[in-house]
């Protein structure tokens, strides 16, 4: 039976993982390659790297990181952040990424999603949707949740599927950083509106939240950063908890 996936997310800037990491005996707490290695050994099903480097001068650093990780970690690697054109997708894939996540540029240039999916296949195109509740619906936001787009999140998800996205990474900006759990209503609404897999993100504070994301939110995968980085929970611990709650996982 297909397992629900657990995906740790690493925010990378200027070649270093930020948000703080607290692995036991980790010599260099901010080294993305070391952290990726640890997560792989702990049983992560995939890894997502989000490049939050502001300056374009240091953008190539992520390519070197992905090259180094891909040479020794043989699970799917997704990279997002600053993907603006098909050339960016190509550079990341050539460096060893298996999937590329497109966020703001999907809004400013939806054709990019179609062009990238046509050229490299839907399997490697993830569209990241940052969404906030506005009145009685959810709206798509860009620029880290600062910029409203006026787009309805459910309609947007369907449009991205039709343009060739192979997967959606759905982040609730209302819940992100709150540790109060996923926006289950949003996750479920989008998961039921499309046929492609949904990765739920934003708000995980404990292991029950992961279970709820799958059970109530109907997510196909759950993404979390801080609960794993700060060593509150291990990946293996999270998987055992999910299994105890009747969720199929890869142990």
């Amino acid at each position: 039976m297909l397992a629900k996936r657990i995906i740790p997310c690493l925010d990378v800037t200027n070649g270093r993982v930020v948000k703080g990491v607290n692995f036991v005996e980790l010599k260099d707490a901010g080294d993305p390659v070391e952290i990726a290695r640890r997560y792989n050994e702990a049983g992560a099903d995939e890894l997502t790297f989000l490049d939050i480097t502001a300056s374009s001068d240091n953008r190539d650093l992520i390519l070197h990181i992905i090259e180094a990780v891909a040479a020794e970690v043989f699970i799917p690697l997704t990279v997002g952040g600053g993907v603006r054109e098909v050339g960016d997708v190509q550079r990341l894939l050539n460096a060893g990424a298996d999937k590329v996540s497109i966020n703001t540029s999907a809004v400013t240039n939806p054709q990019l999603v179609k062009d990238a999916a046509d050229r490299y296949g839907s399997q490697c195109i993830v569209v990241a949707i940052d969404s906030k509740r506005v009145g009685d619906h959810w709206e798509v936001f860009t620029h880290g949740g600062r910029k409203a787009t006026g787009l309805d999140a459910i309609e947007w998800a369907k449009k991205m599927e039709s343009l060739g996205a192979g997967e959606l990474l759905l982040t609730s900006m209302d819940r992100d950083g709150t540790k109060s759990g996923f926006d289950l209503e949003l996750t479920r609404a989008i998961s039921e509106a499309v046929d492609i897999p949904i990765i739920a993100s934003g708000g995980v504070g404990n292991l029950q939240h992961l279970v709820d994301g799958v059970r109530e939110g109907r997510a196909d995968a759950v993404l979390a950063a801080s609960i794993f980085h700060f060593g509150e929970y291990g990946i293996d611990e999270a998987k055992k908890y999910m299994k105890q709650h009747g969720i199929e996982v890869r142990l």
Partner: protein
Amino acid sequence: MSVDIAVIDYGMGNLRSVSKAIEHVAPAATVAVTSDPAAITAAGRVVFPGQGAARDCMREIDARGLRQAIVDAARSKPFLGICMGMQVLFEHSEEGDTACLGILPGSVQRFPHEAMHDDRGNKLKVPHMGWNNVHQVVPHPLWAGIEEGARFYFVHSYFVQPASPEVIAGFSHYPFPFTCAVASANMFAVQFHPEKSQNAGLTLLGNFVTWNPGASETACDMSGAACA
């Protein structure tokens, strides 16, 4: 100079993961990602990966003049098809109504929308994406050291339906059983991605780079089993 292992490049997707994983399990081998038919013909073993749509794959194979080299390699030397590189070995794909290489009898079809529900009635997504159990139907040198039911990483919307059940080497469930590995003489092909399947995948690739199909055929002959 001929290479030990040729990874066929026909412009369909990113082959870096495949070549990296093979280099990892065969550090002493020369591995070349190539679209040169002569290099494929001269190589000791051939890996045939692929992503994207069947019609585009077939068009790119022919645009590069690779069809004959692929067919010859699949019939003569250790050959590993991966994902789309498995599907196009068959005669026909429903995806884009595409005539494929026809090395193996059978067809390729999409996960049917009406069947995509689990036993609780929840919708199952297509593509089938993630880690699923692979059940080994027959003993095979490429399964050596891999636990029955081990999980491999999949991402696909279409699956193969071999016309000859005897080529089926493995199956998975989504939600019904479907063929995810086939074996015939020197050829082995898988729907999942061994290059992305951590230890189980590396074990399979490691088995491939040392596989000697001639030897296993002899063993089959001696045991009297039907190994055609």
